[in-house]
């Protein structure tokens, strides 16, 4: 594959090391702990370097790194990571039910109104309350923009599962954020002078 160790190092630098910031952000969202996130990223890279000959050139190295990150997290950090508050995942009502009676969302341009109502900290707070599976799917799909095929490979599960888990994860986020909206009194301002 590589003629010598220098070539391997060069390839590792340009393919893998360029994703350090991305991996760090992913690790932070998995652990919500700076020290654990650092350890997780380090361990991911040490493993990636050791097994770099298993990486298939031409495929996404970022996806390959996330797969190692995920496996490392599950093996080592999951027990230690912040346990989410209990959210009853099986009884998530349809969006329509959640939205009903919520005057703080403008249902004509609901997506804009969601987008404009929340800050990074609130989004992180809501994300941190989700269980690992739901958080991970949102990190991979909505934050990092991986394709379903890549996500299925990273998570070792069928594409059908990705679809339904993603839609439930978004719904849970919406529900948690609606709760914040209520607590924080984010009501939609009517244009009355």
């Amino acid at each position, binding site marked *: 594959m590589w003629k010598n160790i220098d070539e391997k*190092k060069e390839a*590792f*630098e*340009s393919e893998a*090391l*360029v*994703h*350090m*910031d*991305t*991996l*760090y*952000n992913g690790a*932070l969202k998995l652990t919500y702990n700076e020290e654990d996130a*650092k350890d997780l*990223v*380090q361990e991911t*890279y*040490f493993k*990636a*370097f050791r097994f770099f000959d298993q990486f298939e050139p031409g495929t996404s190295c970022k996806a390959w790194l996330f797969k190692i990150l995920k496996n490392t997290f599950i093996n080592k950090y999951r027990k230690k990571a912040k346990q989410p508050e209990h959210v009853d995942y099986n009884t998530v009502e*349809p*969006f*329509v039910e*959640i*939205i009903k009676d919520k005057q703080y969302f403008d*249902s004509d*341009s*609901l*997506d*804009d*109104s*969601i*987008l404009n109502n*929340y*800050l*990074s900290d609130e*989004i*992180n707070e809501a994300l941190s309350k989700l269980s690992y599976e739901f958080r991970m799917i*949102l990190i991979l*799909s*909505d*934050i990092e*923009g991986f*394709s*379903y095929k890549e996500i299925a490979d990273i998570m070792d599960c069928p594409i059908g599962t990705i*679809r*339904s888990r*993603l*839609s439930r994860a*978004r*719904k849970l*986020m*919406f529900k948690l*954020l609606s709760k914040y909206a209520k607590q924080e009194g984010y009501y939609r301002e009517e244009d009355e002078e």
Partner: protein
Amino acid sequence: MNCKIVSEFIAPYINLELSDETHAQINTHLEKCPNCKIEYQAQLGICRLLSEKLERLEAHQGLKEQIMKKTIGSNKRSLCFSEK
């Protein structure tokens, strides 16, 4: 297509993960069904919130140097510090 099936396709519709044919069918349904439209807009809102609004941090310099040192054996400033 009924609402139950459409609702299962909304996530992949947003991610452009459907065949052209299915994508068009969902499109047609969303134009005439207010309930599914709400579900679509809510999912789209969350998706955009996560992709556009979350702050991204830079990994600490010390961490980067440590990783470089223990893998490629160098901590020279190089491409790693200019992620696209």
